[in-house]
Each structure stands twice: as structure tokens, then as C-alpha cells.
């Protein structure tokens, strides 16, 4: 039984460590904030210029001057600081953020990521994604394992324009979890009732399987 979006977010939250500074992308990654383990204190960065992002506001508290990188209204915490976009990306590019969790259209077995453009269709822009994958210490992708038409998204090589080369450290999909190491991906966890063969059939990338799953 494949993981739901909530279960993927919950699994991703297990990568958080106490004291981490974390940037969460738009979509499923945003849900990770709901599953932060007890006793783990993380600080969320929003690349539009905020460290210490709080929850969504109550309706009467929404402030047009206080939004996240997805343009959603949010709130501040008592630890919050604000800064310019240049300072924000100095933080990101300079390797000060511990973990970035973001979505993907495609990931290659070498850790290349494509998540910003489909040629011929409208190009919305990469926003801060290229900076995040280039600068953040650890990059975790959360994605559906296959596209809506069933085609593989975890590939030998990405066919879409890249966001970054050899940048993805971990993939959490609805069928399982891969870590991408120097000599290739390793499947380290399976969703309930999903078999290694299921994963192989739904994956184009070559990968090893962790001993614990054999």
C-alpha cells in the first residue's frame, strides 16, 4: 500500500534533527511542518526573507507584509528575524541551511533534479529552487514515484531541463525511500505491502537494495 502525501511528509519529518534550520518547498514539503517529532526543535527558513516561520494566521491576523515563499500569509514566532532577499540567499548559498525538502518532476540516479520547466509548456521560472539545491547541506525530494501517466520519474538521466546536477541526497516517494550516494542510489525503505519488485518495475534508475530489505 503506497504512502499517502501525509505519510510521505511524516517520513520526511524523520530527517529533521534538533537544532536544524530547514527550508520547505511548496506542496507536500509544506506538510512536513505538521509532523515535526516531539523534542526536535527546528527553525523554518522562508527564502523571501524570514527565519523562524510560524503557522498560518487566524483569519483576523493575516498580514499582507508577512508571507512565505509560496505567497501564503503566515505568522512569526518569538525567534523570528527578517532580512533581505540578498541576505536570505547568502544564507542558502553559503551552506548555512541544514536541510531542504522539495518536490520534483524527475530525479536521476546520479542525483540530478528537474523540477522547474517543461519545454513547450509555460515556463513559470525556477524561483529559489536552483539556489536551494546548490547551497543547502542536504536535499530531500518528496515526489510521487510515477507520473500520472505511469511513466517513471526516477530515471537513469533526466529528460527535462535540470534544476541542479548531483544535488539530491534522498528521495521519499509513495513506494519507499532511497538515499543517493557517491556510487548510486540505495533503496532503504519500502512502503507497506510494496515489494522490491514493485519498485523495480516502476523505476528506470538503477539502484541497490539495502541489506535490511533483502
Amino acid at each position, binding site marked *: 500500500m503506497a504512502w499517502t502525501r501525509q505519510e510521505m511528509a511524516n517520513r520526511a519529518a524523520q530527517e529533521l534533527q534538533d537544532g536544524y534550520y530547514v527550508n520547505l518547498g511548496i506542496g507536500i514539503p509544506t506538510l512536513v511542518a505538521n509532523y515535526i517529532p516531539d523534542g526536535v526543535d527546528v527553525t523554518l527558513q522562508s527564502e*523571501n*526573507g524570514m527565519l523562524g516561520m510560524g503557522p498560518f494566521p*487566524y483569519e483576523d491576523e493575516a498580514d499582507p507584509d508577512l508571507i512565505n515563499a509560496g*505567497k501564503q500569509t503566515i505568522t512569526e514566532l518569538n525567534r523570528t528575524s527578517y532580512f533581505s*532577499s540578498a541576505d536570505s540567499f547568502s544564507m542558502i548559498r553559503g551552506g548555512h541551511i541544514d536541510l531542504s525538502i522539495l518536490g520534483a518532476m524527475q530525479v536521476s540516479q546520479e542525483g540530478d533534479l528537474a523540477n522547474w520547466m517543461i519545454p513547450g509548456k509555460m515556463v513559470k521560472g525556477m*524561483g*529559489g529552487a536552483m539556489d536551494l539545491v*546548490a547551497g543547502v547541506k542536504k536535499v530531500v525530494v518528496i515526489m510521487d514515484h510515477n507520473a500520472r501517466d505511469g511513466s517513471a520519474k526516477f530515471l537513469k538521466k533526466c529528460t527535462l*531541463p535540470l534544476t*541542479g546536477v548531483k544535488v539530491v541526497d534522498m528521495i521519499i516517494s509513495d513506494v519507499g525511500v532511497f538515499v543517493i550516494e557517491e556510487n548510486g542510489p540505495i533503496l532503504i525503505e519500502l512502503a507497506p505491502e510494496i515489494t522490491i519488485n514493485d519498485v523495480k518495475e516502476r523505476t528506470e534508475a538503477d539502484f541497490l537494495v539495502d541489506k535490511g530489505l533483502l
Partner: protein
Amino acid sequence: MNKLYTDAEAALEGILFDGMTIMAGGFGLCGIPENLIAALKKSGIKDITAISNNAGVDDFGLGLLLQTRQIKKMISSYVGENKEFERQYLAKELDLEFNPQGTLAERIRAGGAGIPGFYTKTGVGTLIAEGKEHKDFNGETYIMETGLKADVSLVKAWKGDTEGNLIYRKTARNFNPMMATAGTITVAEVEEIVEPGELDADNIHTPGIFVQRLIKSHGLEKRIEQLTTRPRQEG
């Protein structure tokens, strides 16, 4: 030196021309110079190269200048919220240069800081790197990006004094401080104008040297793009 102008039109008088490069602060619709954009629309100048992280929405922000076809080229990181933009771009009526958001922010800072080029890892191996100089530092490959300047920068601040010292509020700061440094002329739109000495000198985000003209904002809409709330717990 009196930097204070009566309104946005007066503040833009004599500094606009067809084909000019304009930076406009803001992230989405947060922290945009609403009055100055309206006056820019009214000016009717054409063939603007606009440097701004986003392109507004169809009927607000820089979207207003797309409606009137005043913009020839955009340099942005994300324009996903604007349908008119999409139409003009696909019809090849509009040039577009995408920059990664951090690269865009740093290029603007560099332009204001007298740095004509710098190296970054961002975009190495992607379309963004094509045609750019590559250089290795400590075994890693970086690409060179160049500084960006503007003929005029339009920024939005929360408080400002008549010397041009500015303070921004929360995430409305975003691209405004760097853009203030990168305009040959910087015009600031400010919610509240105070006398010199009323702002704490340690808390000023943009020193007055960067601001040549300023106005008090009138009738700000401050539109929220994605109102997202949580319910109050039932008591």
C-alpha cells in the same frame, strides 16, 4: 536637499524615458511600490526592461504595465501568477530572462556595490549556465554572474525620514534594499514619513544616500495573493 515629493507623478517627473531599465521591489504582491507603479503606467513610457522578482498578477503590480504593453523585457525568477504574461511570452511579444532568485538578488546587490561579476554554484550544469564563464575553486565548478543596475529603482518601505533613511516591515523587505542601491536614481514610496532622528540609527535598513526622491504612499491596497489561515480552536 529636499528629497520629499508631493506624489508619485511628481517624483517620477524628468527621470523616465522609453527603453529604460527599471527595478521594482517586492516579492509577489508583498512590498511593491503601488503608487509608483500606477504613476509609471500613467506616464505611458514604452519598451521598459523591468527587473523584478515577479511580474505581479494580471491586474495588479507589474501586471498593470504588461496590460498596457509598456514592458519589453522582464528579468525575473518566477512569473507563474500572471496569465497575461504567459500569453505575451508565448506570442513572443515579450522578452524574458529567468534568473535563479538568489542569483537575481546577488546580481542586484553586486550592481549597487561596484562588483561587476561574481561566481556562484547556483545553476551549474543547467540551462542557466549556458554561455557563462565557468571557473573552478577548490575543485568545484562555479559560473560567473554579472552585476545589474537600473536607470531608476522603485522601492517600497514602511517608514522613512526626509533624509531618505528607510525601514522595511517583515517580509515586505525582500528585494527592496538591494534595488535601492542599484538605481542611478532611486525613488522610495513610504507608508509613514517621519522627521530625521525619529528612526533609530541602528535600525535603518537603507541609508539615505541611496534614496534620491521619496513620497508618502496614498491609498495602498496591499493585496494578499494567497490568503491562508487556520481555524481558531473551538473554545
